[in-house]
């Protein structure tokens, strides 16, 4: 019997707002514990939430990019449960009337065609605080401390629709996650850093016999810290479920935890133990009324989406489509390109040096573009030096490596490492003289108007100067002295 996989994501992304969802506390990551808290986000008796308008704006922005209907009336609900990191004993979330509904995300399906993965809803909610245990595990800890800096940081929950064009393979799942992250970053909705917990995913997986209309019991997998973990967990879960079905067993609806050490999923709770969150409309917050003008305002001020940038890069800068695709994949890369472009004499050279040389350095060092130590303005200076033949490609590479290592500017690297090309005309003429004497045939050909031997002569000059001759100057000298 052949099986069919149905995968459904519930993604939480931390919104890119300055302040928290219901108070004025900063959302800055990495501050010392409990330094960004107030009566509201620590659930002091009597404190009340006030909605952050920017969070609503970012939520709608995501909804529009993911082709959703924006609900003109939306409301917050309380999700009640007890946990020490949840200061009010409930999380303010949305239940009935979320911010956005009925959207889709277009990915490339397994058949190579565009595939529109259904999105059921997008809603706003507040994050919980963070527990810090006194030793490595909760069980072994003598005590645990709570850091409420993260409490009430705005989250956007994006829930895929398992009934409308669900994801059917691990490959599609990867494409979907990457696309989602890419779009949210382009929209400046979230920084989507997985390390900082700004992009978190729960995955629902179920399996059914091909062609069946029944959805089958699904398991929900939690606790995955990276895309790789998500995909590994998926792989494992699909195998686990199909083996159960093949051996005639039954799959139960349950929540499972991913164990990254052993790359397996472990049962956490069954449907029977599922908590009753007793959702009800939060009486401390009024209904959010979203008028047409507000939506239009957001539409007009929408940052560029990856597809739009692709078109711009190919049309305006003449970047080949394949390179442009590589540039736009990560927003920070294309941002880097765009910061350099106005300062560069040749954007094609710029593209080449980013996609070939800079990518290689980033790859080798395991850094992301955000962590790149080179500033766009200095990268542009390097490109212009190469483009103007002030330095050769080879020296360019050496300089780039040095810039990457030290974060210094190209001019000072060239100066201090004695990489400055020799442009002393008398000296170069003397070398050229020697080369001409040694290569009379080439000289004859050049005099006849052939251009190929010019490069050969330049190469010879370079050899004699350990690559330090000013290539452009040498070329000019050859033109002057030998050209017909």
């Amino acid at each position, binding site marked *: 019997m052949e099986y069919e996989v149905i995968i459904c994501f519930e993604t939480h992304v931390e919104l890119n707002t300055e302040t928290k969802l219901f108070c004025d506390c900063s959302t800055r990551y990495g501050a010392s514990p409990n330094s960004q808290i107030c*009566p509201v986000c*620590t*659930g*002091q*008796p*009597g*404190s*009340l*939430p*006030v*909605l952050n308008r920017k969070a609503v704006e970012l939520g709608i922005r995501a909804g529009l990019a993911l082709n959703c209907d924006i609900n003109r009336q939306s409301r917050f609900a*309380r999700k*009640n449960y*007890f946990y*020490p990191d949840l*200061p*009010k*004993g*409930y999380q303010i979330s949305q239940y009935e009337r979320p911010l956005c509904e009925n959207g889709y995300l277009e990915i490339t399906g397994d058949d190579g065609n565009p595939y529109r993965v259904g999105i059921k809803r997008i809603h706003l909610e507040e994050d919980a605080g963070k527990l810090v245990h006194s030793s490595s595990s909760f069980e072994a800890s003598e005590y645990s401390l*709570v850091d409420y800096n993260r409490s009430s940081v705005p989250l956007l929950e994006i829930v895929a629709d398992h009934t409308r064009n669900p994801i059917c393979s691990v490959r599609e799942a990867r494409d979907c996650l990457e696309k989602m992250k890419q779009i949210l970053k382009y929209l400046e909705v979230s920084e989507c850093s997985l390390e900082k917990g700004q992009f978190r995913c729960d995955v629902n997986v179920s399996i059914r016999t091909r062609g069946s209309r029944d959805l089958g019991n699904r398991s929900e997998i939690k606790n995955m810290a990276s895309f790789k973990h998500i995909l590994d967990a998926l792989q494992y879960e699909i195998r686990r479920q199909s083996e159960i079905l093949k051996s005639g067993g039954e799959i139960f609806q349950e929540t499972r935890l991913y164990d990254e050490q052993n790359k397996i999923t472990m049962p956490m709770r069954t449907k029977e133990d599922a908590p*009753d969150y*007793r*959702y*009800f409309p939060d*009486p*401390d*917050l*009024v209904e959010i009324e979203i008028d047409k003008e507000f939506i239009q305002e957001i539409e007009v001020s929408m940052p560029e989406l990856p597809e739009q940038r692709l078109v711009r890069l190919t049309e305006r800068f003449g970047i080949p489509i394949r390179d442009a695709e590589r540039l736009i994949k990560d927003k920070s890369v294309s941002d880097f390109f765009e910061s350099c472009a106005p300062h560069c004499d040749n954007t094609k050279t710029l593209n080449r040096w980013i996609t070939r040389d800079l990518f290689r350095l980033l790859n080798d060092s395991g850094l992301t573009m955000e962590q790149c130590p080179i500033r766009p303005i200095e990268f542009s200076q390097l490109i212009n030096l190469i483009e103007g033949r002030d330095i050769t490609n080879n020296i360019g590479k050496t300089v780039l490596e040095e810039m990457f290592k030290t974060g210094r500017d190209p001019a000072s690297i060239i100066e201090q490492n004695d990489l400055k090309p020799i442009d002393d005309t008398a000296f170069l003429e003397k070398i050229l003289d020697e080369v001409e004497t040694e290569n009379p045939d080439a000289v004859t050909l050049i005099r006849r108007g052939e251009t190929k031997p010019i490069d050969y002569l330049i190469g010879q000059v370079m050899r004699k100067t350990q690559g330090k001759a000013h290539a452009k100057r040498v070329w000019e000298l050859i033109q002057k002295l030998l050209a017909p």
Partner: protein
Amino acid sequence: MELCDRSAVELTRMLRRREVSSREITESVFRRIDEREETINAYITTTRDKALEQADLADIRFRKGKKISLLNGIPIAIKDNLCTRGIRTTCGSNILYNYIPPYDATVVKKLFQRGAVLIGKTNMDEFAMGSSTENSAFGPTCNPLNPECVPGGSSGGSAAAVSAGETVLAIGTDTGGSIRLPAAYCGIVGIKPTYGRVSRYGLISYASSLDQVGAIARTVEDCAMLLNCICGHDRLDSTSAVVKKPDFFRTLNEALRGIKLGLPREYFVEGLDKSVKDQIMKAVTLLDKNGADIIEISLPHSKYAISSYYLIATAEASSNLARYDGVKYGFRSGDHISHTGKMYEETRRKGFGKEVKRRIMLGTYVLSAGYYDAYYRKAQEARTLIKQDFERAFEHVDCLITPVSPSLPFKLGEKIAEPLQMYLVDIYTVSLNLTGLPGMGLTCGMVDGLPAGFQIIGKAFEEETVLRVGHAYEKLAGSA
């Protein structure tokens, strides 16, 4: 007459004429407290040192002249469910017995900015759940008019303090009648403004969609003066209304002539104590004779008010009180227990009183999967119907006159074992919390040494009219 027995309006005049100092008034209040507090138990915390300090500052402001608020130097008591920075705020509960808020409620801030002198934090039913101030972890409050009787609740401490001269003014809160009932039971005046009129920021929530802060005083005039100081939009409370702030004081003396007062038929039927009814009808007659038109009207869905109220209030309470878990502040039991869930259980079992636990359980049940539609949603639907009743009635009248409570103040312990009997005490008051309408509880005569109360209900954000009618009545009754 002792200074502490005078009205705030009178004291303000005396202060302005420099006939008396705020320190003298404050000292007079504390002398009364020394005499009577042991019997009455109106306060959970008194703040004598701070009060005298504030009084002296108020006196300095008088000496310096310049724009001075009417409240400057006037003693005030604040119900212990409003947060006061640096001053213990318990909500009448063991679970917050040691809680010292890091911030001031908006109302408290406004009072301090205007120079009011804080006498202390008043006793209340735990988390404002109750109608007698017997459900307090700090012992019951007694009715100053007859210490064997309850003062009503849940703002019983505030009302008793005002009535006994243990303060001049008091702040109360009203979720189902908690200002109007104790005011009536203690023979004074209390107004619950329209929902959204006064900021709830810093008011420890019982039921967010019903809670409202209001004024308790010995005269309608004093209520108007206090309300003027505490109302207004607050950015920190999303449910606070953006409406013009009227001067309640200025319109008090407008004539009664032509004003239409409605008597809802459903409020004067079986269940209402005859002696109370007689007193109310006397008041109605007095108003009628002096120019008001009396019209009988109907509020057909009144019978659903009590059940809707207890479904909505308990549902919201079950969630609002979830934060008292022993993790962050307040009482914690079971430090020795390594299991977090068990620590929660221990803390909440020992920290909350019986009535609070009863309501948390009720509310949790009401919101449970499978019951939500049958209870919570139904109650909200009934709430809409009740609202529409009032809207229709107000097409014909300016105010409604009703009882506050079916009976005279009852004895301490009389109803404590019968929660349903106790819930019915609120039968005439809860509708205003469901609809958000303003209402005032005041006294209309004494029966066997105990006050009978009546209620004036107004249109949304038309407290002026309620106060005007109340003030007119007070003058008429005083001269009668």
